């Protein structure tokens, strides 16, 4: 099986090629946010480097969200164009699950944190001792809420993600259980992790894990601001 994975949901633009359990290639760039310019040239360079026959891939894996709205859409439209041209399906991977897959073989809990602005984080709680277990599915909440839940669980934690640097001070002040911060090679979105997670999901769910490129759409976990404010006008109680 051959999986082409695409990452554009956060600060990293990336792509990877996974072939029957081998990570043949990975290209990852975290440099300003110019995914719109860099992603397709990266794909092109990586494919050329490993003589990839694009028509030979089985499906395209992509982080479906949450993440930067614009980044998610650059990833989505790229994947949709590839899917249309190659007639291949898409395997959407939850972004926070993919981040959790950066770590493996630990008894500690894994808590990815992505900066969601407005004093919130995209997060979730996972175990990945010998296979990913989702204890709390990806969500958008205040940092305090996820810290409270981790304190209640009472187990040691590893934090990963671009939300860690901005939350470091608050974590030091509020975390009651011991925790670690993942180092640079493990703490950002990686297309390789997305590919690995996609392979797992395909093994578990088969074709049910796939969607057509035409129907694939990002999962933002948030409605657009205009829609939220319009909701406010109609019903003041809802979003106070």
């Amino acid at each position, binding site marked *: 099986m051959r999986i082409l994975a695409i990452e554009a949901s956060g600060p990293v633009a990336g792509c990877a090629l996974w072939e029957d359990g081998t990570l043949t290639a990975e290209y990852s760039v975290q440099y300003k946010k*110019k995914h*719109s*310019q*860099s*992603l*397709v*040239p990266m*794909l*092109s360079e990586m494919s050329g480097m490993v003589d990839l026959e*694009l028509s030979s891939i089985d499906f395209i894996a992509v982080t479906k969200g949450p993440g930067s*709205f*614009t980044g998610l*859409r*650059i990833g*989505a*439209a*790229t*994947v*949709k*164009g*590839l*899917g*249309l*041209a*190659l007639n291949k399906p898409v395997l959407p991977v939850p972004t926070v699950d993919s981040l959790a897959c950066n770590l493996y073989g630990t008894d500690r809990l894994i808590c990815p944190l992505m900066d969601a602005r407005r004093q919130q984080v995209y997060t979730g709680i996972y175990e990945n001792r010998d296979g990913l277990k989702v204890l709390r599915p990806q969500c958008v909440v205040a940092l305090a809420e996820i810290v409270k839940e981790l304190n209640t669980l009472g187990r040691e934690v590893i934090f990963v993600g671009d939300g860690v640097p901005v939350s470091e001070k608050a974590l030091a002040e509020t975390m009651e259980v011991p925790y670690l911060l993942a180092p640079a090679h493990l703490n950002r979105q990686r297309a390789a992790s997305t590919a690995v997670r996609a392979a797992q999901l395909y093994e578990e769910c088969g074709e049910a894990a796939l969607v057509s*490129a*035409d129907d694939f*759409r*990002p999962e*933002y976990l948030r409605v*657009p*601001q*205009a*829609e939220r404010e*319009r909701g406010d006008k109609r019903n003041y109680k809802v979003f106070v």
Partner: protein
Amino acid sequence: MDKDITILAIESSCDETAASVVVNGRDVLSNVISSQIDIHTLYGGVVPEIASRKHTERINQVVKKGLSEAGKTLQDMDAIAVTYGPGLVGPLLIGVSEAKALSFATGIPLIGVHHIEGHISANYIANKDLEPPFACLVVSGGHTHLVLVKDYGEYEILGRTQDDAAGEAFDKVAREIGLGYPGGPKIDKVSKEGNPAAIDFPRGKVAGSRYDFSFSGMKSSVLNYLNTCKMKNIEISVPDVAASFQQAVVDVLVSHAMWAVEEFHLTKFALAGGVASNTALRAAMEKACAERGVEFFCPPPILCTDNAAMIGSAAYYEYIKGVRSGLDLNAKPGLRLGER
């Protein structure tokens, strides 16, 4: 050229997701437009985030329909063209990302197209014999440009709006007099029952710059008029306000256009853009051209609104000049005409 050049074009610069297949820049095999207007009407204007989400949901279906209605496959294409500016950055990125992925996966050359160049080129589709040089007034919800088209792909901007676009002014006035969004078509319709000479709104001028436009002062004078009537308890005639404002805008557009025609001794003049569908503007411009013995061109409404056929036409003239875009093509919301 002995071989036909077939181009798939994609447009997503505002709230229309569109795809088209065009042969040799003039023959439109398909022109698929998926409009989001119903959604944005709820907000009284285009919401960029919502537009971007809708483009993402619809882009593949629109591109596929564009190909199937043309009876073509992706492999039949000589180039893939896409609007990369100007426009709303979020919406632009969807078309650009899709087009780049299609180009990368198939090896078919990519051509980034300027949106205004597309609007001007709509005239090539509607009038098979039209060739430069001519002057073109591009008027839409986002743009007001008076352009000298010297040759294919060669432009000189004579004037542009210093504030609101003409269509934007229509939208704002329409909102104030309770007509709602989109303002252009609604003002056009209700004006037919009004007296265009009822209220003498000022004709906007830009000091020291003959060909530039200013519509925000004209819009403000309508608001002042409405406020004054309200304070004095004078009943407002919506058709009269609409017709008088429309007349003021039309007068400004026509006078600027005819100055250009006279100064540059042009024999051909063309309209383009969404506001080119305005019936009063079309009629006034046609009359002014006829009086001067100038040939008048105006695309049908389906080619005036944002569409991809016009992008396919503009792309053809870039293609035969050898212009190609790299896979690093980016959306440029502030792209200027003639810039690449």
